[in-house]
């Protein structure tokens, strides 16, 4: 229990660092030096030191938005097994809770954006409401796959101890599909290229960034921290899917996990450098690929497990 809580704290504290890895990789591809690896900490400290400006259009929902979206990301991490260790909390059905908690975070982010009466933020909110619908279907398809394999509905059953190793032994090939499907969801849910461009300069083309335009100071810091944690959550699952950890030697497991995590973030950075953002109406097709892959993976397991 103690080590689980320590790992949870580690996850929250290191999440900003890993996000900076993406920036570094992108800078490398662009032939630039790039920001320092601790850039996100500097940003967070700077934001926490500042005050805020609130729009006259806003209400209490605008202030609730950052709190709830950050709290959902932190709560979700509580249920995530890290480096093969048991999560802080776990129960049968916690994955459903996790997915719906993320929905709750999204509800409040959208509500905070709609609060500002800005047409740009409305536009971002409409997109934020649209794409995750397909993501959610794909996520539940992946859950069906996992349930078919393990008969359990909790993240700890899939990833703690030798959980993911057992998955690979049972159904290696379909699991590859799942890894790709999950990576697509990672890109979509965390507003990365090719779905959304966090570094663009035109508000019309943004999704997540445009929704938080009006937030400032500690409020904005909470939003940033929440999105770092959310990305960590998805990246950690991808890592543990790819690297079935043997929890025999605890220290080694941790090293392998964090090395894998860095690789996942680097791949995200490489994807961002290699391809451009899709046109908005192409995004649903991209996300549907994820659903299709998860669906086929599940169908294949019908043959494997009878």
């Amino acid at each position, binding site marked *: 229990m103690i080590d689980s809580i320590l790992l949870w704290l580690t996850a929250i504290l290191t999440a900003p660092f890993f996000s900076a890895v993406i920036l570094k990789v992108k800078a490398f591809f662009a032939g630039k030096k790039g920001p320092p690896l601790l850039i996100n900490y500097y940003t967070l400290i700077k934001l926490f030191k500042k005050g805020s400006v609130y729009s006259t259009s806003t209400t209490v929902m605008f202030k609730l938005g950052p709190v709830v979206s950050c709290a959902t990301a*932190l709560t979700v991490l509580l249920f995530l097994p890290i480096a093969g260790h048991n999560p802080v909390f776990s129960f049968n059905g916690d994955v459903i809770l996790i997915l719906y908690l993320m929905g709750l975070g*999204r509800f409040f982010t959208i509500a905070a954006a709609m609060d500002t009466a800005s*047409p740009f933020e409305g536009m971002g909110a*409409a997109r934020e409401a649209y794409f995750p619908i397909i993501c959610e279907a794909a996520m539940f398809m992946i859950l069906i796959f996992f349930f078919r394999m393990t008969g359990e509905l909790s993240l700890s059953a899939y990833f703690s101890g030798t959980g993911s190793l057992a998955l690979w032994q049972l159904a290696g090939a379909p699991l590859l599909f799942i890894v790709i499907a999950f990576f697509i969801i990672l890109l979509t849910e965390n507003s990365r290229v090719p779905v959304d461009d966090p570094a663009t300069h035109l508000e019309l083309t943004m999704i997540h960034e445009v929704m938080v335009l009006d937030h400032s100071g500690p409020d904005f810091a909470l939003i940033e921290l929440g999105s770092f944690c959310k990305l960590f959550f998805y990246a950690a699952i991808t890592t543990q899917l790819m690297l079935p950890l043997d929890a025999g030697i605890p220290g080694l497991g941790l090293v392998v996990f964090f090395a894998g995590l860095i690789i996942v973030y680097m791949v995200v950075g490489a994807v961002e450098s290699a391809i451009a953002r899709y046109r908005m109406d192409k995004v649903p097709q991209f996300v549907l690929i994820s659903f299709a892959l998860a669906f086929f993976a599940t169908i294949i397991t019908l043959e494997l497990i009878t």
Partner: protein
Amino acid sequence: MNQFFAALVLIVAGGFLSLVCARQQTFSKGIAVLLISAGCLWGLVYAMTQLLGAHNHFTTFQYLNIFALTCKIDGLSAFFLVVIFMVCLLAAIYSFHYMGHSLSPVKDAANYFFFGLLIASMALVVTAANMITFMLSWEIMSLSSFFLVIYNYHLPENRRAGYLYFVFSHVGAMFIFAGFGIIYKYTGNFGFGAMTALPETAKVWAFFLFFVGFGSKAGMFPFHVWLPHAHPAAPSHISAVMSGVMIKTGIYGILRIYMLLDLPAPVFGYFVVAAGVVSGILGVVYALGQTDIKRLLAYSSVENIGIILIGMGMGMVGVSSHNPLMAVLGFSGAVFHVLNHAMFKSLLFMGAGMVLHKTGTRSIDALGGLLKSMKITGMAFIIGSLAICGLPPFNGFAGEFFIYMGSFKGIGLDQAPFAMSIVAIVSLAVIGGLALACFTRVVGIVFQGEPRTKAAQNVKETGSTMLFSMGMLAAGCIIIGIFPRFFFTMCLTAVSALNLGYARIPVTPFELMTGHITFAAFVFLLVVLVVAGVRSFFYRNKPVFRSGTWGCGFTQPTVKMQYTGSSYAFDIIGFFRPAAPLTEYHPPVTGRFPQKTHYKSHVADIAERHMDSAVVRPVLYLFDKLRWIQHGDIHLYIGYILLAIILLLFFI
């Protein structure tokens, strides 16, 4: 049982007294609200004790020495009684400040009269224990709600809505009659017992007839067409009762018939799941396309009926594949969602009623920024929206959680049950996502941002009884969401009355699940508190200013530039284009100095669009051809009667 009838008498008497002393408007309203809510409270307490004690009661009256009117309260009836009385109680209280602004006091009094009848007849529908009692109360329910729908009869669209509702409810009743007819043919009496003895084919026919009949009352796609017309037409507390409770009598009917017919074949389960999936997804897609807030909520009822049907269907699949846990989870999840939907949907209708009452418009795109002027209504509406999206820690999540758990149990099965479970789970996920889009849209456009027209400016929320009802329902949504255990045990009692063939449903595994929901809610709320604490820590002694919204460099923004409800939903509707065709009208902009132009869009409901060509026109054509029978000659009419009697004598 006597207490139950006394409560009903009180409710009907309230309505009747209101009609008698209609001239004294305030007194008439007061006495109606007082007696109806007292009756509902009495009924609620009585139903609650029956449910917790799991008693069965049975009463029979002789009517005209021909028919026996029989009422029976078992777990399932008691559960629905709790839902009916609870929502009607709050709706009656709400109506005190909502009603009484019309110029015709008799109209209001008549409204209360039919409201009392509606409550009593709904209570009788769920307790009826033979066909005569059931159909009698069913018809009273349909007719009294018809009169409630045409409350504002001077508007032609309301008369049309009432007519549509009348036709649908009676065609639905015809199907139910036909179903009972089949059963009567085999059993030879009007009782509800002995239906299990029916031959298989008769059971299949009866089930599908009942399914169509009850489905049209419940608002199942494609028989939902009356719903989005009737709900906006009725006064808001009536919409709350109709959408929150009355359509659930259709669900009750399907459950009761399923129980009585004892249908083990899996195909019924698949059929119900498929109907649920179609209703659920299309309901919420159409809800997204609406610009009238009450129509939107009506379509969202279609969606929630879909969720309930998915739960029931998974329960039926569980029964047919001998998976007790899946069966109990599916049925109890569905029944739980009945309770939850009754709460948040009536809350939302009451909120919409407040908006309509104060601004005078139901059009979403004319509103905006109401949260600033209507704080309690706004917060209650947001709580209702969070609950209807199925988000934790609100009651919608608790209900959907059990349906998910039940559906996942089906993933472990093979072939058809497996496929149905996949369909159910993925559809629930899609419905959840769409509902989130739909209700962030309502909240964002109506309650947030800036007022889009004059109607939404300078509004105040008044009417303490209206606020009280909404506050109670919002509190209920949170309490059930955090502590679902007690309420879920109620659902288990209701499900055990279904006689699924499991001697006793053990409570322990389900208490474990509800415990998990409570635990997770506490963990989450604790984290929220901590984050809020951190936030306020960092805001100590900080400069905080208020200024205009950042316009991305544009300095002359107007309220008309805000995103509208139609633009918010545009992309999502586009994704579902074949099922939700979008028609746009806008004259093209021409010339160097273009004149004013306009834009209008409309999302069509395919069931409504095809109803005309597929049902109405063929029926009209047929009856047009039969017009020669109607010639106006009274002798021949008497001849028809004689002929009919002689023909009937051959059969009896």
